[in-house]
């Protein structure tokens, strides 16, 4: 990581701990925000959070590895989570899955080389009456067809630049 990037991460974590409070119960909210902003919780981030909360980095690591939405490996700007539970399965999630893999050129569990997209399975996301359902970051899409996959990906690609959700957050955090 570049030094300036590390400096930014350090400052962000300091600000987050200030906002949520330097207590153990703030650990997960802090990690959730780091994950959303940086797409991962690096070893350096874990050390930094641990120092702020006065706990051992192993404690942070053990929490990071427990939760599906937190992780050490980098996730793309757009994390796509397709529901694989039975109602979406019966509604045709397998076709949607193939289309996502084909259009992105990756399989589930992978991130595109340009760092834009990650593809993950999700367990039931509470849209079972409108399957197949998927999440793109915090947005939900329902009744997804293989045709709709293309539109969703286009929407993501278009939202790069000034309109991107992720980049907006980025600006906010710096402001």
């Amino acid at each position, binding site marked *: 990581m570049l030094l300036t990037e590390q400096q930014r991460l350090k400052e962000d974590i300091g600000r987050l701990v200030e906002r949520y409070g330097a*207590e*153990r*119960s*703030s*650990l*997960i*909210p802090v*990690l*959730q925000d780091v994950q959303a902003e940086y797409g991962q919780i690096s070893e350096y981030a874990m050390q930094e959070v641990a120092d702020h909360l006065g706990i051992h980095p192993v404690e942070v690591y*053990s*929490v990071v590895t*427990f*939760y*599906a*939405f*937190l992780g050490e490996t980098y996730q793309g700007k757009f994390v796509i989570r397709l529901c*694989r*539970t*039975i*109602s979406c*399965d*019966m509604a045709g999630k*397998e076709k949607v899955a193939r289309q996502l893999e084909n259009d992105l050129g990756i399989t589930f569990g992978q991130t595109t080389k340009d760092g834009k997209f990650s593809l993950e399975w*999700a*367990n*039931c*996301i*509470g*849209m*079972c*009456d*409108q*399957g197949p359902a998927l*999440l793109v970051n*915090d*947005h*939900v899409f329902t009744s997804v067809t293989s045709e709709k996959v293309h539109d969703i990906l286009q929407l993501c690609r278009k939202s790069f630049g000034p309109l991107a959700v992720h980049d907006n957050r980025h600006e906010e955090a710096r402001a």
Partner: protein
Amino acid sequence: MSANRKGLVTFSTIDPNAALAAAVAKTRAEIIGEVTASKLKGRGGAGFPTGVKWNLAAAAKGDAKYVICNADEGEPGTFKDRVILAEVPDLVFAGMTIGGIAIGAVKGIIYLRGEYTYLREQLESALAKRRAAGLLGPQVMDKAVAFDIEIRMGSGAYVCGEETALIESLEGQRGEPRNRPPFPVDTGFMGQPTIVNNVETFACVAAIFAKGAAWFASIGTEKSTGPKLFSVSGDCARPGVYEFPLGIMVSELLREVGGENAKAVQIGGASGHCVPSSEFTRTLSYEDVSTGGSVMVFGPQRDMLAVAKNFMEFFVEESCGQCTPCREGNAKLLEGIEMLEEGRCSAAYLDELTKLGEVMQLASKCGLGQSSPNAFLSIVSHFQDELMGRTHGLVR
């Protein structure tokens, strides 16, 4: 069956402010008495009497007590809590506030699953409106009671819906269930007396104070009172959220949702039971087929082994791994399902798997491992013929 059953039929008619006003006019004992008289049972799946829980927490000694709303809604096939939070969030907030007054808590926390992050902003703004209107804050409705609510997000772990795992998670730990007892009503969040209730349970509380305990108790059956929301998905013409009185027959429900020709329904999600068409006269109630409200319909063409496999994959992934029966058991059952799929499972081995499932039900530490074999066991007992001696793998 009368009139419209689709959507939040009763809840959409309840005025949350009227409910709260009725409650703040009462003493703590009267509030708990009213909840007890309604015979409300928890809507999150376990069906524990809410009045009893609140009474225990009210009696417990602690410096700071807590009210937690379980909005983790991770049970496969359940989405009614999402609809409640999206459409009538104030009912939930009012119910939590009433709970706070009843047990003497000034702080409430909503544990919202990470998958529902898109609801957060509108919930925060609804909370802000309540603060501005004096419905939350240092003096609720100008009375000498304080209460406020904070939202905390989950991070994609189903087991965190289990109340003690949820509390661990709120405390910044891995979401590993605790031994019970002690129960949260004694030793909950931060070691303090805590009530954990489902989203729909809090909405029911608001309805009870708006319309009266007697009204609530007059709906449903003797032991299962009140209206109940059902999340219906799968092979039916009209999936969605429905409201029925508890005690409704499976066949009646199927008629209403357009799923009459189903060969089976899964009641209660992945951790629930599979009911075959020969048992569609059974009722959805705490005394018969108990459920948090998930109903998944399987049409005549569905492969029940594929269903069992999908559920078991879920549990293998979501087991927290803390105790052996669940960690090893689910993996073994999945392996067995794969043997069935390949047509190389002997009757004797299937027997062994059944026994393993029964051991898991008894020996697992928390509800996840205790209920994870349910779907498999009920599918084996009702569809053995369909499962054994396969030559064709899974049918999709």
